[in-house]
């Protein structure tokens, strides 16, 4: 079974609006509600009660445009969120905002004085108020629907295709509702109860539908309040509060259009339409910052692990260089004592003794490096090889994507439990994958990196990292594991040598084979503890007798 791209586990979803609101958010929401109440008080009973404002005809189109744009964007973002979360409650909220946006179309068509003086482009005198009621009753009904189903036990999550279909259905339904309502209030305007007395003033009848609308909003607030859980609920309560408070403000202090109360209602409308939008934008900005942080952290982690190889190489180079310097210097001194017309044998002997001492010291350095690669038994843990492969590929993901490399992960059946040093085995995987990426980076597509894992000789695991890159030229094949052999201009050639040392310290083996039709396959084995108990596991498996491809130098002659 080929699980292409399955290595990148489905991302955890961090939809902030579905998290509990923070204390700061709660305070802010309370502050907004208080501010609205104060404005309401100032206009209805306070000093602004008698302020007279001019009629500005251009105000209505700008107001409608602002509402339409805000609500459409909010709806779009909420649909996008639904596509990720795939919970129906989110779909209902998205539909509510789509409804709020679409209902602005009949609203502007029937508003008197926008397209024609003192009358709407369509409908009659009653149409405007009824479309307004339609909007202010429809929206809380959607919100009520959301409130009632949001805590329903999450049934199976919708499949992606099903989610797309539901979005389509929701948009079509919402469009149909708005069209039906709009047509009703335009075509049947002469049948509508007379809630306005002229193009400017509301009549006494206005209060009956308005009360129903206000009640719906209050019920919406109560339902959301009793079930408030997440940040979205909190801010929807604020929106409903704005919707509810619009009703008395439309009538007091003056029951007419273009009064201070009427303008304030429009302002509240725009605020109501942008509250959730701001929440979503805040959410996106926060997520974006987190994403950048996470990408950076991942890159640093990967570099930290890759650098280890070079750091080991550099420290080996430095540690060996000192005794080497001393040996060469003493040898030069010894030769000079012997080259004298009367050779100073005592001094020459002293020089040779120094050389011998330094030679032993260099040997100790090499031995200590080998010992440091030997794993501390405490670090040997049971390894989930497939998980290590997945993690290594995740760390290399950005490079893989940048080079447009297709990844195939092929776990072949159940793996026996193997033990080893997790970090070191991961370093080997990272090095092999990085080499594979380098080998394919300049090549034509298809570029395929396949990483397979399978059981090996009973208690072991065999991991293969295969690429379709440049491969290893035949004259290099017996040297690629030699320290200081490299085909890269910026490499020290220690990578594969260290990888092999690490794997051998884990009682495994690492070898290379050409891939077909092109590229290279690096394979390594890891063993369970049963075999580790053998006196020298590396001797227990003869490389020459192995059926697996090995380097020419090790082949039986």
């Amino acid at each position, binding site marked *: 079974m080929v699980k292409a791209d399955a290595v990148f586990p489905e991302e955890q979803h961090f939809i902030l609006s579905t998290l509990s609101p923070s204390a700061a958010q709660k305070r802010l929401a309370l502050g907004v509600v208080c501010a609205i109440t104060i404005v309401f008080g100032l206009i209805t009973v306070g000093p602004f009660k008698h302020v007279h404002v001019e009629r500005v005809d251009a105000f209505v189109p700008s107001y409608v445009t602002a509402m339409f744009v805000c609500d459409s964007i909010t709806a779009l973002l909420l649909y996008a969120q639904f596509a990720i979360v795939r919970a129906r409650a989110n779909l209902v909220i998205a539909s509510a905002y789509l409804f709020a946006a679409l209902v602005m179309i009949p609203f502007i068509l029937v508003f008197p004085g926008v397209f024609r003086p003192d009358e709407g482009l369509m409908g009659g005198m009653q149409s405007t108020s009824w479309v307004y009621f339609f909007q202010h009753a429809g929206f809380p009904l959607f919100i009520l629907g959301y409130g009632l189903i949001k805590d329903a036990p999450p049934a199976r999550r919708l499949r992606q295709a099903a989610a797309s279909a539901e979005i389509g259905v929701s948009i079509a339904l919402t469009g149909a509702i708005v069209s039906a309502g709009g047509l009703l209030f335009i075509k049947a305007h002469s049948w509508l109860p007379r809630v306005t007395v002229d193009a400017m003033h509301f009549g006494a009848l206005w209060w009956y539908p308005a009360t129903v609308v206000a009640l719906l909003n209050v019920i919406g607030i109560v339902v959301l309040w009793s079930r408030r859980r997440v940040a979205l609920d909190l801010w929807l309560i604020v929106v409903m509060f704005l919707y509810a408070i619009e009703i008395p403000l439309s009538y007091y202090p003056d029951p007419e259009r273009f009064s201070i109360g009427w303008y304030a209602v429009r302002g509240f409308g725009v605020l109501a339409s942008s509250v959730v939008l701001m929440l979503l934008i805040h959410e996106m900005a926060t997520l974006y910052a987190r994403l950048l942080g996470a990408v950076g952290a991942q890159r640093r982690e990967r570099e930290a692990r890759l650098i280890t190889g070079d750091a080991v190489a550099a420290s080996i180079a*430095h540690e060996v*260089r*000192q*005794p*080497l*310097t*001393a*040996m*060469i*210097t*003493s*040898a*030069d*001194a*010894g030769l*000079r*004592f012997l080259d004298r017309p009367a050779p100073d044998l005592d*001094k020459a002997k*002293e*020089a040779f003794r*120094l050389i011998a*001492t*330094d030679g032993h*010291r260099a040997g100790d350095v090499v031995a200590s490096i080998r010992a440091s690669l030997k794993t501390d038994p405490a670090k040997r843990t049971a390894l989930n090889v497939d998980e290590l492969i997945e993690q290594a590929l995740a760390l290399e993901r950005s490079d893989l994507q940048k080079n447009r490399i297709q990844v195939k992960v092929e776990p072949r059946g159940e793996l026996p439990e193997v033990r080893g040093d997790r970090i070191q085995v991961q370093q080997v995987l990272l090095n092999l994958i990085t080499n594979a990426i380098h080998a394919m980076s300049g090549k034509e597509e298809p570029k395929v990196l396949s990483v397979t894992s399978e059981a090996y000789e009973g208690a072991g695991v065999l991991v293969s990292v295969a690429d379709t890159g440049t491969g290893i030229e035949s004259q290099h094949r017996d040297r690629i594991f030699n320290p200081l052999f490299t085909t890269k201009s910026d490499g020290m050639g220690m990578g594969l040598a260290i990888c092999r040392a690490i794997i051998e310290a884990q009682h495994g083996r690492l070898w290379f084979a050409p891939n077909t039709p092109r590229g290279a396959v690096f394979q390594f084995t890891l063993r369970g503890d049963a075999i580790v108990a053998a006196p020298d596991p590396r001797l227990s498996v003869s490389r020459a007798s192995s059926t697996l491809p090995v380097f020419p130098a090790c082949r039986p002659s």
Partner: protein
Amino acid sequence: MPPPASDYTVAVVDDDENVLKSLDILLQSADYSVRLFASATALLQSGCLPQIDCLISDIGLPTVDGFELLRLVDRAQPGLPIILITGRSDMLDRVPAGGAADFRVFSKPFDGGALLAAVGLALRSSRPGPCRG
């Protein structure tokens, strides 16, 4: 007739004891008098700077490194020839360019003959002859 090499004193500063010993025997093979120091501070505190005709110092020294020593010695003993040696190739990039001090840099491992030649050249060009303090 040039003065005998044994009239010249060469000081060596390196924190690696074996490198120090090997340089000791190399300089002895050319008949120089040798003073060995495990650190720059040891050299500066010994008070024998005025008796030294040439200084060989490692760059990567603890506390006071070779570059710092170069500056200090250049102030205390202007004109003293200095040869820096280093085991780290990245140190070569940090060598101060065009300083007042007269110095050469060798990277480890170096050729013994080349180092001795550099010492000889430095001694000949720095002063007409050894002067004892």
